[in-house]
């Protein structure tokens, strides 16, 4: 008679534990990426932090955060410093390869007005394809040597393609493919991971401190940061690709850059572009 009485509290405890655990979301769910929720939280963070900045204006980087810089930039845009590169890119884009084909043959809509769809996840290759990578794939498929990912020619080509897409909102898709979701998550992880001797992550500058000065620079917000790529930088005295920008960021925090177009960089571009969906392409851009 005593035994059932002793079992009762134990049973109750077990039942309580079962109910408690059933009510808790599974541990896996907490780590499962939710890109839609991420993008909303990302956008809300910047909108709340900068209530006076129009959403689309985040694509103009530091100029959306500082009135003096903005006026100087608007003056410069009368004769933009990227104009020569843009002309070069247009000419390169139209020039046929040795086999008679051209870049236009490799891209949807002949390569015009498509920047907003890059990068994308290619299920056949099982990886993220950036515009820079797609351009070199096009060259190699047509018997041409690949261009440097950090050189002027790649910057010129991407500048022209961005220019034909100006104003079109980023429209990055994450297909129903676990590998695409993993690439997105890998990009997010890279974005928030501290590295280099300075122990900075991308987010240290572009989430925690946009609008603040770092030496003479005003840090750009992460929201819309790739919309302006490629950029002419006065500091560089020329145009720079997204690859150049990412590798330089790593060097500046005293980290050894990865090879341009490494998986991590392409995934990072995928993540950052996705969370900026809806913001207009503003490239090629010009920065101090």
């Amino acid at each position: 008679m005593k035994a059932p009485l002793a079992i009762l509290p134990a049973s109750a405890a077990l039942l309580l534990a079962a109910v408690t655990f059933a009510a808790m979301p599974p541990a896996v769910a907490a780590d499962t990426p939710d890109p839609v929720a991420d993008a909303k939280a990302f956008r809300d963070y910047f909108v709340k932090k900068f209530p006076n900045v129009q959403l689309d204006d985040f694509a103009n980087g530091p100029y959306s955060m500082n009135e003096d810089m903005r006026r100087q930039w608007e003056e410069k845009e009368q004769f933009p410093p990227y104009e020569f590169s843009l002309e070069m890119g247009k000419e390169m884009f139209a020039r046929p390869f040795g086999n008679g084909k051209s870049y236009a043959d490799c891209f949807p809509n002949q390569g015009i007005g498509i920047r907003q769809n890059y990068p994308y996840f290619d299920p056949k290759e099982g990886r993220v394809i950036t515009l820079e990578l797609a351009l070199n794939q096009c060259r190699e498929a047509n018997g041409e040597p690949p261009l440097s990912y950090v050189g002027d020619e790649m910057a010129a080509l991407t500048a022209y393609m961005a220019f034909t897409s100006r104003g079109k909102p980023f429209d990055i898709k994450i297909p129903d493919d676990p590998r695409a979701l993993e690439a997105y998550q890998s990009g997010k992880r890279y974005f928030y991971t501290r590295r280099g001797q300075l122990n900075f992550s991308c987010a240290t500058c572009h989430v925690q401190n946009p609008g603040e000065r770092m030496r003479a620079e005003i840090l750009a917000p992460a929201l819309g940061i790739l919309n302006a790529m490629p950029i002419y930088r006065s500091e560089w005295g020329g145009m720079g690709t997204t690859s150049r920008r990412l590798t330089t960021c790593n060097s500046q925090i005293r980290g050894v850059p990865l090879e341009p177009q490494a998986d991590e960089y392409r995934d990072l571009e995928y993540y950052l572009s996705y969370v900026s969906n809806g913001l207009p392409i503003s490239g090629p851009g010009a920065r101090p």
Partner: protein
Amino acid sequence: MSIIRRTTPRMAVLSLVFVLAIAGARSAQAAGSETDFGTAYAAAEAANKEAGRLRNQWTVTAEALAAAKNAADKGDFDHAIAAAKEAEALAKASIFQATSEKEAWKNLEIH
């Protein structure tokens, strides 16, 4: 004069012995330092290689390794060893960073 005549050769011999002893000691020390440098440099390189496997090398580690090699090439093993040890410490810090960031990055995420 006679005292000088008697002591000078003896002092000369003693001085020569002293100089040779110092030279021998320095030579022995230098040889030891080169070995120590090799050990310190190999340890630093191994740590930096591990940081590379984790995709998280630091530019300052490469600079310290280059400084160590440069000093060793000039025979300055004291500086070479110091630079190699600095490189190893930097490489180990980058490994620690990469390891701890495997989870710590989530703390920075916007929710």
